[in-house]
């Protein structure tokens, strides 16, 4: 599989001093769903803005679908789709008019436009409201329209910036179902930033975690979780079973065993494979087991491990906001002097 996105030492410094993105490098394969996670202000949206030729990098280089983001911004914009985290559709136009406008701007052939727009409206469950002004749409309808606008030209790479922010769980699930279908149908590459770690865990083939403008971890969700030391299998024997501890430690793949109040917590890379072996070891010692549970590390724990903080939606300002703030602060300081 070829690389759809290549970033090499990509950097962005605002006003010569605020380093929003600090030499990030990564690749995204064609057809992959790649998640870009990080706390607010980590540099997610700044990176996405550079990859979509909205923002010029101050260092490094990046190509999307083989096009350099600095040298070929116009051609690049024709090949990518971009769904912003905020509503950008024109509220004074109908849903259909918004899509027709996007189709014209992105060069969808005129003869194909009515069918493409009609199909997309139906697919995103906006057919019945296509002739209504967007100002009358609900939040979920607006998000679906934003997605429709982003994909009306069948882009080769789709960038999603916090696409489900503000949607209820049902709306989020519906949104991702559509994305999954699109990927299956067209093999489209998806680059997304999201606040919802469960979404990233469930949807992304690979994930990069960015913090303070640098990538601190990258891999598949499973790989990232494995780096925490793997799963935890909790074994609850019936009665006293001190002799079990040595047997558990001797099982292949077990990295740690902790006994606490008669319950064993066994750490291992693949807990589901280990469970039958644990049952076998207990049986051979004549120990009965009252219960056994498998706990896989969540992406929340991965995030905590690599960024040193828990994932919250209401953290600090974005990198751009910080840059604007710093500019204002510097201007104010110059004014005081």
């Amino acid at each position, binding site marked *: 599989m070829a690389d759809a996105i290549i970033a090499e030492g990509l950097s962005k410094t605002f006003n010569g001093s605020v380093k929003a993105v600090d030499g990030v490098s990564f690749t995204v394969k064609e057809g992959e769903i790649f998640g870009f996670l990080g706390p607010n202000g980590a540099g997610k949206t700044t990176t996405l803005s550079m990859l979509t030729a*909205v923002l010029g990098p101050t260092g490094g280089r990046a190509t999307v679908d083989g096009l350099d983001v600095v040298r070929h911004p116009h051609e690049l914009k024709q090949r990518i789709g971009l769904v912003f985290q905020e509503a950008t559709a024109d*509220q004074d*136009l109908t849903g259909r008019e918004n899509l*027709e406008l996007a189709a014209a701007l992105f060069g969808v052939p005129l003869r194909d436009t009515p069918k493409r727009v009609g199909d997309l409206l139906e697919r995103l469950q906006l057919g019945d409201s296509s002739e209504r002004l967007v100002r009358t749409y609900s939040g979920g309808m607006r998000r679906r329209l934003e997605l429709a606008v982003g994909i009306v030209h069948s882009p080769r790479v789709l960038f999603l910036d916090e696409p489900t922010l503000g949607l209820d769980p049902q709306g989020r699930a519906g949104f991702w179902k559509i994305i999954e279908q699109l990927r299956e149908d067209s093999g489209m590459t998806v680059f997304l930033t999201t606040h919802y770690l469960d979404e990233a865990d469930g949807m992304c083939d690979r994930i990069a975690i960015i913090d303070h403008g640098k990538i601190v971890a990258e891999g598949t969700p499973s790989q990232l979780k494995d780096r925490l030391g793997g799963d935890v299998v909790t074994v609850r024997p019936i009665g006293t079973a001190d002799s079990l501890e040595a047997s558990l430690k001797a099982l292949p793949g077990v990295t740690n065993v902790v006994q606490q109040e008669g319950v064993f917590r066994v750490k291992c890379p693949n807990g589901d494979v280990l469970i039958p072996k644990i049952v076998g070891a207990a049986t051979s010692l004549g120990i009965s087991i009252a219960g056994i549970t498998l706990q896989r590390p969540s992406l929340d724990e991965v995030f905590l491990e690599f960024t040193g903080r828990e994932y919250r939606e209401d953290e600090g300002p974005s990198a751009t906001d910080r840059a604007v703030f710093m500019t204002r602060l510097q201007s104010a300081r110059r004014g005081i002097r």
Partner: protein
Amino acid sequence: MSAVRRWAALTRRELLKLGRNPQAIATSLLIPILYLILFGQGFNFTNLLNSNPFLSPDQKTQYIHETFLGAPDYFSYFSAGMVGFVAVTATLFVGANVIFDKLFGTLKRTAASPATATDIFGARLVAGSLQPVGLAFLVLGLSVLLGDIGLAGLHVSVAVSVLGAAEVVVAILLLSVMFASLFLSLGFTIDQPQTYFAVVNAINLPVLLTSAALYPWGLMPVWLQTIASYNPVTLAVWVLRITFFGDSYYAYPAWVYLAGLFAWAVGMFAVATILTRRALAPRK
């Protein structure tokens, strides 16, 4: 072809939005209507001159013609000036719309598309320049109507030729293009509506008050006449007045003033193009 389609699609958007906002059109029209009905009827210099017992009818006519550059009365002179006024007040909305599109994210979406700065600017310029042309003809029509119902109105004193009518349309269009370019430049470079309207007010008033749109030319001090003769609003209304009242009181034929207006429009268009490209370029 794709550039034409992008431009046409963006222009369609502007016109659809305009058509769905009759309040904006009504507001644009309300101010000139109030000027015509209240200011134009009440502030009539012609009555002042006619009430002078020391002037013979011929002297009065000559004085009126000299003061109003060939127009038979102040209202006729003033109504042509109102067309220039309308071009300024109606086009200021195009810049305001850019700011609102920034605030609502619509401009961000368009700028992230393959649409070029020229497409985005061009579409707004066309839509923004067409509206004042329509309003200008409504103002002229209303001015004639007022005369027909016994009030002070626009009285055209020479036969308007096809060429003259075309010159009027071109003059209004050039003036609209010039001011739409100016206000679009401001819209693309200013982010806050409050700042925009403050700047626009600081521009509008001096522009209108240093033009021959409202003042009787013969009563203006020479220094103000000198300034006004370079003002694009003056150049446009002179073309209208020459078409409606003849060119006896003008130093040059209408095409010379059109050429001056053209230079203004091209200059402002060039400045606006540069500023728009800069505003829509990927942020550094």
